[in-house]
């Protein structure tokens, strides 16, 4: 493997052997009606040519030992807390959002325990209200919104587009500190006694009536909003200005398109939330304000401003998941994505139309019925690009060569659960039906199908897919597949009964409930315990893999993205030389059709396409 040109020096994985698989998709496979052309036998020259570098950089000084990986670039805590390397910042985020995820999860566990019996016998009403508020605030702003963008987005955006870092690395570090500062305010509010407004902070309850630490919690959310804005700004500029040569817009991986769409929402929606919460805090502090009906203000104004942010924020949670799905499904189906362009336009369409539909949260709020009708129709429009995405993922499987590794299981689960979540969203977009279902458990079930069944499944899929790249280690695929199935089963058991509860009329945020709802609530709580096991399992085998996992090659899944062309874990500078891109992404079909013979070859020739490890489960024997 050491015969690669200098530009590929980075690619020699520590383990050598078959693990250092080299993808060719970046070679010119534009036409697949014939034997693959030269690119296939000259991965280094064809797909990644050294780009003249602006400044001297010893990485390009010729063949050299494996460049220092980003993980080895300093071991002190300070070397992490002061790092402006996008990959290290991604790890900082990953650790912090995991902590917040389990904090929010503890609140959810207590909620489900309380709801096992109709009577409010486990925690008091005040405690229950604080629990669901903390669950909502933490899960929405400190887990779901930053989850994929801040971890995988940070890690992968520069790698996928062939850049050395994000455009503004210091801003990136600042945004992590803002996230932590916001988190401290919120955790402070939690320790000081909690907040009981619900994550929606509706006025006038939050301004004039709640006796809890609303201002501290709101400040936390305000601050974390700026973290989102800076991340979005960084991604937009990076994707526009830092793409590798040849990386045209329609050669971008769909994950990048998803990040771009997400960033648009970050940048254009979050400031409205910030100013709204600012108004809320002042109004609570001073007792005067435009949301207070006592002076002729309007509480619905708050709801309009809040949902102008918070509805697009839902798409912040799901768009990155869609990006992950496009990466993973193509890779394990070994097939090009179906209708790449419409997939790219669909994420943009979702991001933009997503801004036009916020009023569907307010059909029974007392807004004008004309507003209701306008928002209802617009909401149906946003269903179309979402439906396109689901259909295209399904079509991608057609005539593929499907492997069932853990990431694929998570993402197939994602497609199914997102479909259910999306379709039930249409129930809620229907005006008259929403009048019945609004603020019942039907809504709870619907958005958990989108956010947990969708975003969290995709997040876990992404963890398993890019884990070898991020850590350089393989985990136990057997355990991972087991966990994926547990999560899928536990999730459905938890949330499907809630659809029934909602249709029966059980309102959300209820500490106690009429006894006829008990059976379904018990089912839901039982499911939650299964789900909890599913979420805890990865902690064990993933941590285990950090120490004992076999080393992963640079490309254990034989994937096509640029991120797989650099060693695992990637070097500090990402690429020994900036790659030159010559073909669209996801050319798996060409990769599958062409080299049937090499498939069984045990010792790939130098400069020959490296073969994924043995049959079926790529990465298995990446020693």
């Amino acid at each position, binding site marked *: 493997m050491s015969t690669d040109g200098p530009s590929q020096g980075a690619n020699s994985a520590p383990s050598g052997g078959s693990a250092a698989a080299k993808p060719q998709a970046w070679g010119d496979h534009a036409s697949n*009606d014939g034997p693959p052309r030269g690119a296939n036998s000259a991965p280094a020259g064809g797909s990644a040519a050294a780009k003249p570098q602006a400044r001297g950089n010893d990485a390009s000084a010729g063949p050299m030992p494996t460049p220092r990986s980003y993980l080895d670039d300093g071991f002190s805590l300070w070397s992490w807390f002061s790092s402006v390397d996008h990959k290290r910042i991604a790890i900082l985020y990953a650790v912090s959002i995991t902590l917040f995820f389990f904090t929010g999860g503890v609140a959810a566990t207590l909620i489900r325990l309380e709801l096992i019996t109709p009577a409010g016998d486990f925690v008091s*009403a*005040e405690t229950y*209200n604080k629990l669901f508020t903390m669950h909502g605030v933490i899960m929405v702003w400190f887990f779901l919104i930053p989850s994929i963008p801040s971890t995988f987005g940070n890690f992968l955006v520069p790698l996928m587009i062939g850049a050395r870092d994000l455009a503004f690395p210091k801003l990136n570090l600042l945004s992590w500190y803002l996230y932590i500062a916001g988190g401290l305010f919120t955790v402070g509010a939690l320790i000081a006694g909690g907040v*009981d*407004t619900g994550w929606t902070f*509706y006025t*006038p*309850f939050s301004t*004039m*009536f709640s006796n809890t630490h609303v201002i501290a919690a709101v400040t936390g959310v305000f601050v974390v909003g700026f973290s989102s804005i800076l991340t979005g700004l960084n991604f937009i500029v990076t994707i526009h200005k830092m793409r590798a040569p040849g990386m045209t817009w329609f050669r971008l991986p769909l994950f990048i398109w998803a990040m771009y769409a997400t960033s648009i929402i970050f940048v254009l929606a979050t400031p409205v939330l910030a100013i709204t919460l600012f108004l809320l805090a002042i109004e609570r502090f001073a007792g005067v304000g435009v949301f207070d*009906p*006592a002076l002729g203000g309007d*509480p619905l104004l708050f709801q309009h401003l809040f949902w102008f942010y918070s509805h697009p924020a839902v798409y912040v949670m799901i768009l990155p998941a869609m990006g992950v799905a496009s990466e993973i499904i193509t890779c394990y*189906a070994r097939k090009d994505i*179906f209708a790449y362009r419409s997939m790219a336009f669909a994420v943009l369409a979702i991001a933009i139309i997503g801004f036009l539909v916020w009023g569907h949260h307010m059909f*029974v709020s*007392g807004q004008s019925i004309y507003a209701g009708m306008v928002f*209802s*129709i617009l909401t*149906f*429009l946003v269903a*179309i690009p979402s*439906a*396109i995405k689901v259909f295209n993922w*399904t*079509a991608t*499987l*057609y*005539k593929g*060569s*499907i492997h*069932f590794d853990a990431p694929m299981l998570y993402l*197939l689960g994602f*497609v*199914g659960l997102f*479909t*259910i979540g999306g*379709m*039930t969203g*249409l*129930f809620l*977009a*229907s*005006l*008259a*039906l*929403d*009048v*019945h279902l609004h*603020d019942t458990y039907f809504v709870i079930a619907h958005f958990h199908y989108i956010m947990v069944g969708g975003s969290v499944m995709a997040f876990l899929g992404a963890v398993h897919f890019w884990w070898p790249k991020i850590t350089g280690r393989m985990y136990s695929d057997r355990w991972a597949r087991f966990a994926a199935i547990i999560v899928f089963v536990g999730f459905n058991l938890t949330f499907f009964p809630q659809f*029934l509860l909602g249709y*029966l009329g059980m*309102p*959300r*945020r209820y*500490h106690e409930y009429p006894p006829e709802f*008990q*059976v379904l609530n018990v089912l839901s709580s039982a499911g939650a315990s299964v789900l909890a096991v599913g979420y805890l399992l990865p902690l064990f085998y993933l941590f285990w893999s950090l120490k004992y996992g076999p080393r992963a090659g640079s490309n254990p899944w034989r994937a096509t993205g640029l991120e797989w062309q650099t060693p695992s874990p990637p070097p500090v500078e990402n690429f020994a030389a900036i790659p030159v891109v010559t073909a669209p992404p996801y050319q798996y079909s060409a990769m599958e059709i062409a080299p049937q013979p090499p498939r069984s070859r045990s010792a790939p020739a130098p400069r020959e396409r490296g073969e994924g490890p043995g*049959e079926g489960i790529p990465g298995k024997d990446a020693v």
Partner: protein
Amino acid sequence: MWDFPLHPPTDSSLATRVDHLFYAWLAVSGIVTIAVFFLIVYFAMKYRHGSRAARDLPPGAKLRRESHRIEIAWIVTPLVIFLGMGFWAAGLYYAHAAPPADATEVYAVGKQWMWKLEHTGGQREIDELHVPAGRPVKLIMTSQDVIHSFFMPVFRIKQDVLPGRYTILWFTADKPGDYHVFCTQYCGTDHARMIGRVVVMQPAAFQRWLTRGNATQSMAEEGAARFRQYGCSGCHGASASVHAPKLEGLFGRRVQLSDGSSVVADERYIHDSVMLPRKDVVAGYEPIMPSFQGEIAEEDLLDIIAYIKSLRDATPGEIR
């Protein structure tokens, strides 16, 4: 244990129509979801790695043409179906929003954490609403503190109840029964206890209930008492020396305001005139009325509104 309901009770034609919409959506979404699940499982099995399924795709140009057709088909078809369903739902929503003129009025005040209801006859109820079957009933609702929401699953309707505003909800119950009322807008500590019953009675039984009820006097009479208690009559009464607008025959009339605009004197106008007297000042009068914000409970104000309503056909001088 397993005899729990899977379907909420239904007691109005509107609820049945909402159910039809629900089942239509269930069918549409069920077909889509099952199709997606079936295809995923089918493809996953047929095209699993190592299977012998044929994998030859048509050549590039043809593939693109075909996939364009498929794309257009699955953009247009769902769009047409979804929009059709959407208009169906919008029509029903419109019916929700338009109460018939002859509906029996009941006034509701939400406060942390109870519902106070009052019939025009003066019968007061807390967390219970008695209504006759077969007759449209219109709830005129407001809140004394935070936003609440009045939800009756049996009729498939709910409406947020806001401070400083009146919102309405109407239904016609089909048959007698006893059903849940929930508050569905989170309103603080005992939100989950802000529940009640709606009791639908045969009209005759309802009439008996009304007469047997706790009403000593009608809402309007009660309102007249409050009108004096809060000192309104001191200025608006016949013998008042203060120059204040006369309230006889006011309700439903268009009122000229001092700034040149005009408004119809409805519940909201009277409410605002009492609570925010400086917002709309009647032309030709000084803005001297004090605000009763925080002085007067919403349910008392509803009595007063009922009283002023009862003076719809009165002639000036009738107020004492």
